[in-house]
């Protein structure tokens, strides 16, 4: 196992997007593997952190900053984007307006961080894709190419679809993480079992809706 404790190294991930697109649900699903049907608007900025144990035996400490989508809290958000490593910009695939507003959020991110940030586009509520989809894969793919985001993905926090994959891909996208030594890759995977905060990020190959899985770039 790696002798690196990384007590001082944390990766700040800021979740952005319009109100009620599912930013908090996404984090809650990742953190506690639960989904709450009742909607409660986030007040200000919430903070949660989690150590992720990846398949390769690497560990990583993620700081998740959950921002409020309401306009009245908008002025707070740039301060949190400023020192973030990753900006997860969320939209609701059943709400075209939330997708169109991504431009505003991307602009905010670019303004604060320029190109020195990993942008991830997340289309949530993919469980409603069949009946209520308003944003197509082509729409988001086009935006992804336009803004140069790291990847895009459709998720469903309700159906627990692609959430783990999202965070795994985020972790794998971190440049510092990729540069870390891989000398102990083979003998650390079992350490997961002893840690209560272990998150199994193994992807269920049999998970339904393979189409959305393929949307990751």
């Amino acid at each position, binding site marked *: 196992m790696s002798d690196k404790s990384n007590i001082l190294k*944390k990766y700040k991930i800021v979740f952005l997007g319009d109100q009620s697109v599912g930013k908090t649900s996404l984090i809650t699903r990742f953190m506690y593997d639960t989904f709450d049907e009742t909607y409660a608007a986030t007040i200000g900025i919430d903070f949660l952190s989690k150590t992720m144990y990846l398949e390769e035996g690497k560990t990583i400490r993620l700081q998740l900053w959950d921002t409020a989508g309401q306009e009245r809290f908008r002025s*707070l958000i740039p301060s949190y984007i400023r020192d973030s490593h990753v900006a997860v910009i969320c939209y609701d695939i059943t709400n075209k307006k939330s997708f169109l507003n991504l431009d505003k959020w991307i602009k905010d991110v670019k303004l604060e961080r320029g190109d020195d940030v990993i942008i991830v586009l997340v289309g949530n509520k993919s469980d409603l894709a069949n009946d209520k989809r308003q944003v197509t894969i082509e729409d988001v793919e086009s935006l992804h190419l336009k803004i140069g985001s790291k990847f895009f993905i459709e998720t469903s926090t309700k159906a627990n679809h692609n959430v783990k994959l999202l965070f795994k891909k985020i972790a794998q996208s971190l440049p510092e993480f990729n540069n870390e030594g891989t000398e102990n890759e083979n003998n650390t995977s079992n350490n997961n079992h002893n840690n209560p905060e272990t998150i199994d990020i193994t992807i269920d190959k049999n998970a339904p809706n393979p189409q959305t899985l393929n949307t990751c770039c």
Partner: protein
Amino acid sequence: MDFIDFDTFTKDNSTDNDWNLPQPQPALSLPITNIENLSKKLSQFKLTKNLIIPNDSTTTITVNNDEDELMKKYAKLSINLISDEKKQEQDPENGNEKSSSNSTLSTRLSRVLNDSLNDNDQREIFSYIENNLEENELNVQDLLDTGFVGSVSRSNFKNRIESNLIKNHSKILKEYQPVIKQLKSTEGKLNKFNELNSSTESIIDSHCQNSNKFNARINELNKQQKLVLLKKQLLQSFNAKFTLTEYEEFVLTQSGEMNDEFFKVLSKLQKLNENCYILLSLDNCKLGNDILNKSNQLLNSSNDKIIKFCNKSLGNLYSLNLKSKLVTLQKCLRYLQNKYNYFQNMIDNFINSRSKFINDEFLNYCESNLEIVQQESIRFIGDLLAYVHSLIVNESETIIAIFNINENENDPIIQDIINKILMNLQKPIKLKIDHLIYSETKVLTIFQIFNLLDLYVIMFKKIKGNNLIEVLHSLISNCQDRIFSIISNKLSIIKQSNSARLELDTDLQPPNWIIEFYSDILNLLDQIKTKTILNLTTDSHEKFLDLIINSPVEIFNSHVELNKAFNKKDNLIIKFNFLDLIQSKVIPISLLSDKVIEINSQINDITEKLTTLEYVNLLKSLHLENIYNVSNMICPFSDEFFDTSIYEPIKENKLYNLESMKQIDEKIQEILPNSIIEIQQSLLKVNSPMIVNDTINQVFINFIKFIKKLNLINKEILDFEFTWSDYEMATMLGIEEVYDKEIASLPDT
């Protein structure tokens, strides 16, 4: 082997011993069933050989001697018998003897026959006799003969039987001969065995004696050994409990590594040190003291070593990026946890250094953002609070990662460390934000700061254990105070301001300062969603409302009162316009609904005063003022009850007469048609057309109602009526509808 003696058959046992016939001996009852097996077993044993073959001369001689003696005895008996028979023949009393021998025989027979032998035995005996008789061709009569023949026959018969018996016995005995021989040879062997046994026993006895001695010695040695072992165990145990090996001492003092072995030895040393109190309780506590001193010395040096390591590690947190270092540090902390002074000193040192580090970081951050402070205080405070938010989170995570030694993130120790580290941020944060709050003059900006702080209180509450919330509360309180003070100062300046007074001119419009004053305040109030303004207490909320509503009104009123250029009507109109403006501003704000009612009440007072003023002016212009006053003195016209008789006393007034009434009628016809324009002109500077209209209507209604009553009085007393009736006047004044409603609402008079 017994034989039946010959003589025993001849004499009666009761009379002469010679006649006492011996009982035939039973056949030898030897167990011959296993004779074959026995002979096999004793193959070397041959009875016939021993008895018949005179190998052993002694035995043969003995047998021959016995046979000779027996033969002699029988020969002697036979001779005696013959001599006795001769005597009997010679004896004349032979018949008697014969009868006596018969009786003897019969006695014997009866004895035999009546013997206790059972039937089977008897049958066997007699069958045997019978068979023998047949075999030997003997005559029973001869046997029964009492004479010589009988005696000889019986003797022969007896001999034959005995011979058969002997043969049988010999035969049986011959079968035992090999067994005997075998037994003889076995006897020798057994004797040897016995000898061997006795010699062995004697040897064993001697050995036993030796063994007992040996065992006694062994037991003694065993006891000694046990004592020695006990001593050894005691010493080993003592050694284990009260001493450290040289290597262990080396691990504690010399070895530079703080590894598992170090902590193992340290744990042992701790136990050793604790156990010393057992030694100290002994009568001789010197040993205990010595060991205690030594262990204390070692413990102190180990503690110093641990503290040195902890301080070094905590002084350079980057070193803890190595997991092994972190684990060792946590072991050290776990060890020191129970040593309060050491632990607390170390923690205090860490807190001091960490707080200093964080303070420096914070100040660096502030310095690097000085430009923003100058340009945009709200953004600076927002960024500052976001920075502090991240700082708290990062610091909490770092402290938890280091000090989570009891597997509990909510450990009071951790919370205490975090709080103490962050506590030192309280002052710089408060200073920075306070500075901005107190240097800011815009209420709206401070209100935004207030909102920001209030939001961060909610956000900081979600983060475990940080006491910066107190600072935020204090800053919020300062914002509230600052808003109060800015408004108060502003009002104070206005109160003292000459320009504010000069703003009151004859156009009777509200001054500009009130518009400016509310431009900020109303923006602030419009954004408030809480139950009280700025989350103030109810009392403070009321004070604030007084400050923003009542105080400006008071200041304005004071300014108006001081202005000598205004007449009474101007005074009322400008006050009305001022209140009307305030009301129009605050009426949409729900928080100010009470104040709206209060202002409305003031407006109504002014409107009433203005109505009264205009009404009096109208009466004056029509010369009705005195009549109105006199009538009112008799009975107020405002009373709903009216009766002309009540006003009878008016006759006594010199002013009330027909002539004067005629003049008034003329005046009415002259002035009343233009009175609408007159009053409208008079109220032209009132900003609210609705209030102007209401005032005019009220003045005319009051007038018409008075005229109507006066007309009735005139008719009753002077028998005079005005040219125009009340309805005609109402129509002329354009208030016929209003008057109709007014009349309809009155009770019948």
